[in-house]
């Protein structure tokens, strides 16, 4: 058994967008008790990450450090779009566009300090991501 669900979200500039609830509900609705869950975004200037939700300043730290790693510069060789877009491609490649989780006893197996986040490296944009829940073979 497998379930695929598509979500549409509207992000703001460099937003860290919480998708934890959407993914958890998809797993619950799927009826899968044991299996895996894949979260995937199809954009090249956005990423996905697991991050602690407890201190809001942590999101600012995440954003700051990502920008420190890949500053928005004007000397990128990719000049077709914008400097922010060029930096966004690099950030997306480094952080990845897919997250994998274990589904156990009908729920997403994540810790209490783990939230799932869609990382916007551009914005505001209309974005979408997919959640696939696959049951173990019997």
């Amino acid at each position, binding site marked *: 058994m497998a379930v695929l669900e598509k979500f549409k979200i509207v992000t703001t500039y460099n937003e860290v967008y919480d998708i934890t609830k959407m993914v958890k509900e998809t797993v619950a609705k799927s009826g899968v008790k044991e299996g895996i869950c894949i979260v995937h975004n199809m954009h090249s200037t956005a990423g996905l990450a697991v991050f602690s939700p407890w201190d809001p300043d942590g999101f600012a730290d995440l954003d700051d450090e990502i920008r420190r790693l890949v500053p928005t510069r*004007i000397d990128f060789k990719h*000049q077709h*779009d*914008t400097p922010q877009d060029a930096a966004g491609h690099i950030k997306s490649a480094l952080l990845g566009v897919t997250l994998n989780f274990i589904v156990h006893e009908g729920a997403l197996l994540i810790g209490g300090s783990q939230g799932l986040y869609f990382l916007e490296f551009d914005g505001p*944009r209309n974005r979408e991501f997919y959640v696939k829940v696959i049951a173990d073979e019997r």
Partner: protein
Amino acid sequence: MNKYENPMSRQVFSLPELIKEQYADLEPKSRTVLSFQEIFNIQRIVLTGCGDSYAAAMATKHAFEMLTEIPTEVVSAIELSRFYSKKHMGVDCRNPLVIAVSNSGTVARVAESVERARKYGCYVLGVTGNLESPLAKHSDKVLKVDIPKFESAPGTRSYMVSTMALLLLAIRFGEVRGKYTMEQAMDYRYDIRKQGELLEALLPAMNEQSLELAEQWKDYPCYDFVGAGFDYAAAWFGQAKILEATGKFAMHINSEEWFHLNFFAREAGRMGTFLVANTTNPAMSRNKELVKYANELGRPLAIITNGSKADFDHEDGVYLQVPDPKYEINMVLTQYAPLCLIASYISIMIGEKYGRGCEGKWSFCEGGYCVKHSEIVID
């Protein structure tokens, strides 16, 4: 079509297709002609050109300022080449960016202006169809335009291409400098492309009205073209087309100055008055006052607008509707179309050759001789 059809009117009817073609050509070129570094280096912009290219600069100056927030001046070629202060050139690491427009690239004064601008440290972007031209040779970068050949007539197609090239540059500068998102930038661009369809839909009615107006106004001795902001560029362009196509006297003035000067003209009843007034124009209130007083004077009045009679308090006049774009900056791509049709039809109705046929006393202008051959002076 009609018995008065002519090369200039055919140029107007070719605009919808030309807009599609030129968008496909210029959109990618406008992305790559300047690098991120070059775009971020811009502190000030000077737009320059002669004739229709000068009008294209006036038509897009406000778009540059609205989209990029970079101070932008329109400076005529002779002002830039003979008068513009050297103290204001070559500042802040090759500023201002001078964007010089000439399709042929061979206009002497434009070439002179960019040679001087570069000599004193400006960065020069040429917008031209001729890579071997003096303009191209004196430019740091060139945005190459490729306008398909057409029957010769007072420039209509080339004006549209110049305005589109400048608009696409303005959109690109604002996009790269983060003034709006890439999606917003694409929406501005899609709106440019859409103007061809909008014009195509309006052309049959616009043509009928233009023919009728030309018939009624063809014997007037003078025409007055009025507008404000980028509408003034269309008014300027309209008077240029009347001069080129019909050889008749024509004036151009902005909506405020009209109240200080042009309304004094005698024979008001024989002075064809064209007001270019889009409904989003910040000077709309003044334009409405102008319509009222022009009617009081008994001026024959044509209003070129994206709106209707209702937008002008139902004042009398011939209302020529032009496309209503999603973004006002794109109005300039088509709003001059009825003016070109009217000029072209008057030319045929009175039996006048475009540019006096470059014959007799006008023979010195054959092939643009007098604008291409002029002493170059670089101080």
